[in-house]
């Protein structure tokens, strides 16, 4: 859904882990597409469904032309029936298939909460493990260009709360491919949330099929003065903030959690043990969000390490506004992380 060309230009380029190196690079959407392509190729049980997955845009390129390669039975468009079609995906998974259901935006998952929460997340447990639900739901957070309240939510704060789901939020093309492979291979329902502003990010993505384990965060930058835990796109802003803060002599450790469920508590606790200071930067409402869980976890398990108030950077308690001036005020960025760090770092 290209509204105007400027949108794509406004997107943030990501950091490049292999700057200048002669390695194969893919963008975030290309990496996702390759993961699905390889999964479709390797496992007959895999199929891809979603509104517009076979259209000329191919879901921002992430599903482009896959239907031509694998046929309309395995890669197909769906009606606008989010709850029903999520249930269809859940049922197919229960019956042994491995659906990847692509949603344009997390906002639309709200129509499917009954199937996601009451069904997919509970099917294994509720039947004592006799059945399972290997399902992947992808959704892409929108941001900007006045997308407004109903087209820019992320909602991973909600899924964080539901046992039985896994929750994946990659921030690099490399992770996007590896984690999507892991998601498709997993025997449980996985919510895989992308951020539209990461789509311009390019990184080294090996050609072979590889997987990245769930529950393993990664230290994107080493530091000793404060820990910034980033979620999804906010990892980029955290790295920017760290760069700026380095100019003032602060060494900031930036952690990319990669998956929120399971959560790599160890990586956070270890970092906090070193730094004693924690800022969590999220692309979601602060209140009751994933950052609350991380802060609460540290306030319990890392209490002895913590030397200053735990700060959360994220959205204020208000729906997403349309007007760009209000968007600018609404969305936090590197500056807000910098301010948070300054307040608590020595």
């Amino acid at each position: 859904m290209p509204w105007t060309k400027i949108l794509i230009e406004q997107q943030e380029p990501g950091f490049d882990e292999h700057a200048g190196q002669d390695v194969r690079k893919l963008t975030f959407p290309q990496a996702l597409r390759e993961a699905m392509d390889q999964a479709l190729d390797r496992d007959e049980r895999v199929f891809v469904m979603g509104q517009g997955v076979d259209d000329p845009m191919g879901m921002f390129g992430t599903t482009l032309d896959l239907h031509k390669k694998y046929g309309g039975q395995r890669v197909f468009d769906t009606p606008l029936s989010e709850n029903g079609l999520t249930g269809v995906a859940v049922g197919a998974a229960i019956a042994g298939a491995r659906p990847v259901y692509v949603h344009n935006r997390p906002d639309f998952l709200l129509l499917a909460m009954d199937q996601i929460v009451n069904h997919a997340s509970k099917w294994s447990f509720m039947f004592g493990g006799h059945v399972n639900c290997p399902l992947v739901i992808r959704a892409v957070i929108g941001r900007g260009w006045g997308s407004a309240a109903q087209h820019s939510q992320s909602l991973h704060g909600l899924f964080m709360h539901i046992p039985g789901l896994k929750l994946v939020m990659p921030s690099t093309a490399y992770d996007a491919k590896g984690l999507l492979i892991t998601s498709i291979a997993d025997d449980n329902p996985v919510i895989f949330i992308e951020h539209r502003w990461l789509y311009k990010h390019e990184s080294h993505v090996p050609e072979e099929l590889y997987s990245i384990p769930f529950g393993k965060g990664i230290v994107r930058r080493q530091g000793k003065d404060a820990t910034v835990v980033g979620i999804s796109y906010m990892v980029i802003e955290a790295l920017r903030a760290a760069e700026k803060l380095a100019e003032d002599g602060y060494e900031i450790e930036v952690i990319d959690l990669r998956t929120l469920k399971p959560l790599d508590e160890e990586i956070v606790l270890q970092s906090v043990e070193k730094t004693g200071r924690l800022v969590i930067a999220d692309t979601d409402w602060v209140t009751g969000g994933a950052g609350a869980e991380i802060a609460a976890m540290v306030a319990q398990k890392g209490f002895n390490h913590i030397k200053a108030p735990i700060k959360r950077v994220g959205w204020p308690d208000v729906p997403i506004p349309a007007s760009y001036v209000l968007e600018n005020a609404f969305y936090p960025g590197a500056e807000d992380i910098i301010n948070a760090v300054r307040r608590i770092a020595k």
Partner: protein
Amino acid sequence: MTDHSGIPTEILLKLYVIISKIRRVELRIESLYHEDEMKTPVHLCLGQEAISAGVCATLQTDDYVFSNHRSHGHYIAKGGDLPAMIAELYCKETGCSRGRGGSMHLVDTSVGLLGSSSIVGGGIPLAVGAALASVLRGDGRVTVVFFGDGASEEGVLYESMNFAALKKLPVVFVCENNFYSVCSHQTARQANNDISMRPRAFEMPSSRVDGVDVIDVFRKTMDAVNRTRSGKGPSFLECRAYRWRGHAGAGDNLKSQYRKLDEWDQWMTRDPLQEYEKALVAGNILTEKKKKQITETIDKEIDEAFSFAQASPLPNEKEVTKYLYS
């Protein structure tokens, strides 16, 4: 009662056995429920037995079924393991869901019963999805989903019908219209009481079925199953029968406060077991001796199932977080 000619005796008797079994299991549950040992809400299907029996008799063992909160009949008719079901009602580790599900969440994958949702309408899209998986695999299976008249008010039914019809999936929608959702009559909830009209919105074949008449259920389901197995797409059956008991639990202590009396009287003239029994006796298919033998066999099975269930161990409380993930 619809004429049963042409249906093999073996099947006719099987139908009788299943109806009897469901009836006797439900009555047994009801008679023991006051002991408070089955600590789970039960939704008895007394009065609706012919639907489960007639529908499932048209299915092969590996055909799929999805069920709802009123699941006992579906489970038994599809061939689910009875001791495991009763053990589930007793919330035991030997239960079909290992005591995690209770009465509303029965499962037996060995006979294609992939689970029961207690969210009204929740199982409907699951069935469509299972049918989709069958098509992708080309395994020739048919999927049946059971749901109530109340579920026909949930939007997900319409979404599911549209998609099933669009993709011509091998699924049969079986709506058990017992005219009530808890204490609420269909007329208080639906603009028109002809549920069988609804699927026509998607040009899906649909019939009204006499849900007390197991032969009517069997024949119409057979048509739908044959049709869909041959790739002609889904069908819908509205099976009308009456819920003899309260929504949940034993008895129906509020009966006089919410039932329409003339409706009640009318339906009480119809008993799916007795009508069928009479027809089979008249057709010389069932003798008194055979009947007695069947009943005894069933009762023995039920006795054993309850003994097994009662003697079975409870889940280990240390394993409360087991089975979260596969």
